[in-house]
């Protein structure tokens, strides 16, 4: 399927033709990352700075990220806003650029994000010129705070990280898509291409998928499947899905019949 070149997603001044963001964690070998980037068509890849060893001659995940990818370092491991800010600044100092995905998590069981601390970190980093993509619960109030804090996008979870349970927060994500002016990028929980497609059909700006690709039997083939699904979902959204019938057809107009024939 060809990408629609008139439908670029612009974030932080960067124009993206692919709306699938990918990750670098959980792979059996990092050497597969270039192949996943190629098969999925993804142009944005997130990497946990905690995992990066800039001094390592080998075994450094950064060596496997193709040059054309937009790097999205993340603050995995941060337990509060201060730690997230420090990690972001170190990422920039290490040459990882200005994009930062904020993850502030102080619950190791469910890995659910802390909205308050995330908003605080977003405000600080946006003021320092970072392109901030915060990972949050699908919550309208948090999303509004992030808009005010200067975020470049909002990344609500579809389900808990690594759960592969799908778009469980669908109704809340729909509210964000309707109400928030920033791109809504569904991040976490998507386990199958059909679920990513569903998010895109709803009007999500993009999806970030890591576990479902990295833990698949064939990550390269699964990356391709997600790339196709995200493109299909976006195309369906742009084509404006026809109204869904209620299942009954009725020629009469019990509520407006009094108006007579026009």
């Amino acid at each position, binding site marked *: 399927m060809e990408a629609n070149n008139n439908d670029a997603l612009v974030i932080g001044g960067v124009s993206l033709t692919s709306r699938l963001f990918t990750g670098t964690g*959980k792979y059996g070998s990092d050497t597969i990352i270039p192949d996943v980037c190629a098969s999925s068509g993804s142009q944005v890849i997130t990497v946990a*700075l*905690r995992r990066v*060893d800039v001094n*390592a001659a080998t075994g450094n995940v950064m060596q496997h990220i193709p040059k054309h990818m937009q790097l999205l370092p993340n603050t995995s491991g941060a337990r509060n806003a201060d730690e997230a800010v420090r990690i972001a600044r170190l990422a920039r100092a290490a040459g990882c650029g200005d994009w930062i995905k904020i993850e502030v998590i*102080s619950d*190791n069981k469910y*890995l659910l994000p802390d909205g308050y601390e995330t908003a605080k970190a977003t405000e600080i980093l946006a003021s320092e010129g970072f392109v901030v993509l915060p990972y949050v619960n699908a919550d309208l109030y948090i999303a509004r705070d992030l808009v005010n804090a200067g975020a470049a996008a909002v990344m609500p979870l579809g389900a808990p990280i690594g759960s592969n349970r799908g778009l469980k927060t669908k109704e809340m994500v729909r509210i964000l898509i309707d109400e928030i002016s920033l791109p809504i990028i569904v991040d976490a929980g998507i386990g199958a291409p059909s679920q990513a497609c569903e998010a895109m059909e709803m009007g999500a700006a993009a999806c970030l998928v890591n576990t479902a690709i990295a833990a698949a039997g064939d990550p390269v083939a699964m990356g391709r499947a997600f790339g196709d699904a995200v493109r299909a979902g976006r195309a369906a959204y742009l084509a404006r899905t026809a109204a869904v019938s209620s299942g009954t057809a009725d020629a009469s107009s019990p509520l407006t019949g009094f108006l007579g024939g026009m």
Partner: protein
Amino acid sequence: MGFSETLSQYDSLDMAAYLDAVKPADVERVLAQHSLTPQDYLTLLSPAAEGMLEAMAQKANDISLRHFGKTIQLFTPLYLANYCTNQCVYCGFNTANKIQRTQLSAAELKVEAEAIAATGLKHILILTGDAPAKSTVEYIGSCATLLSEYFSSISIEVYAMTQDEYAYLIDRGVDGLTIYQETYNKDLYEELHPKGPKRDYAFRLDAPERGCEAGMRTVNVGALLGLESVWQRDAFYTGLHAEYLQRKYPGTSIAISLPRMRPHVGAYEPASIVTDRNLVQLMLAQRIFLRSVGITVSTREPAALRDNLMPLGVTKMSAGVTTAVGGHTSDDSSTEQFEISDPRSVEEMCRAIEAKGFQPVFKDWEPF
């Protein structure tokens, strides 16, 4: 409320009777659930569940892949000293054992650190015997400061400390605490620890919690399997301990180890033999009960078994191991705590992990 109150809830539980009463259908029901209660966890430790290990393994593998991916974090232990004031009857460092006692100087530690760092490892676990007057908190702190120049994450496995002492070490670069209760059976504990500061059961039981309070990023608990006559007893309470800590300290990464007794200097014989099947069953039950808790497997286990355990829920493994003081730069084994079963180098472990389709991870944290 501390963990002792949680433990006391099970005082009247007839564990042997409960385990014997479990039927295969009970195990199937537990395996079909998303979340497990402590009783469900105990069900998975039953003889009935031992006959259903493949079904448990499939579920544990699925959970592990989704939570941790195909990765194994590597670390190595570094013994700073083997002076000890205790008489733990099962331990090679027992003060009554006539072994050579030593403690690394700063210069010797630097040489050890350089040798380990040359293997690429970034996470290290430092150990001492239980001799607070000899291996003081200040000594351990100065070692941590020195080691932080070489390693991105430093954990300690030393004697039980106060919260302030843990905080002192955190300020000097320590971010992880490993401390085993050895056995949760108080009477047996006192029998096994006839002399020395370690005899204080309650002080040791609450040590992991003090570590969490002090701000440790990771806290690793465990029991020494083989001390109890019924292995499920300590296995069960270790799981409960991890669950208690995870619930109370969600910001701390909790992990479990499953050390089995190994040959050592001294004549103590295990009270029970934990077979490979038992060990596998325990690990699977832990993974299914405590989905996001780390599981550490040391070189107490032999290479072939360690390789087969990788897909079943292991998150962390040691490599290039010696239990002797200064053992990373010397072949002298006269100071060692116990004999290891998997002598593979870091490079050999990496190849073994990769052969299983997993990725060896050297760095997963640094002080930001």
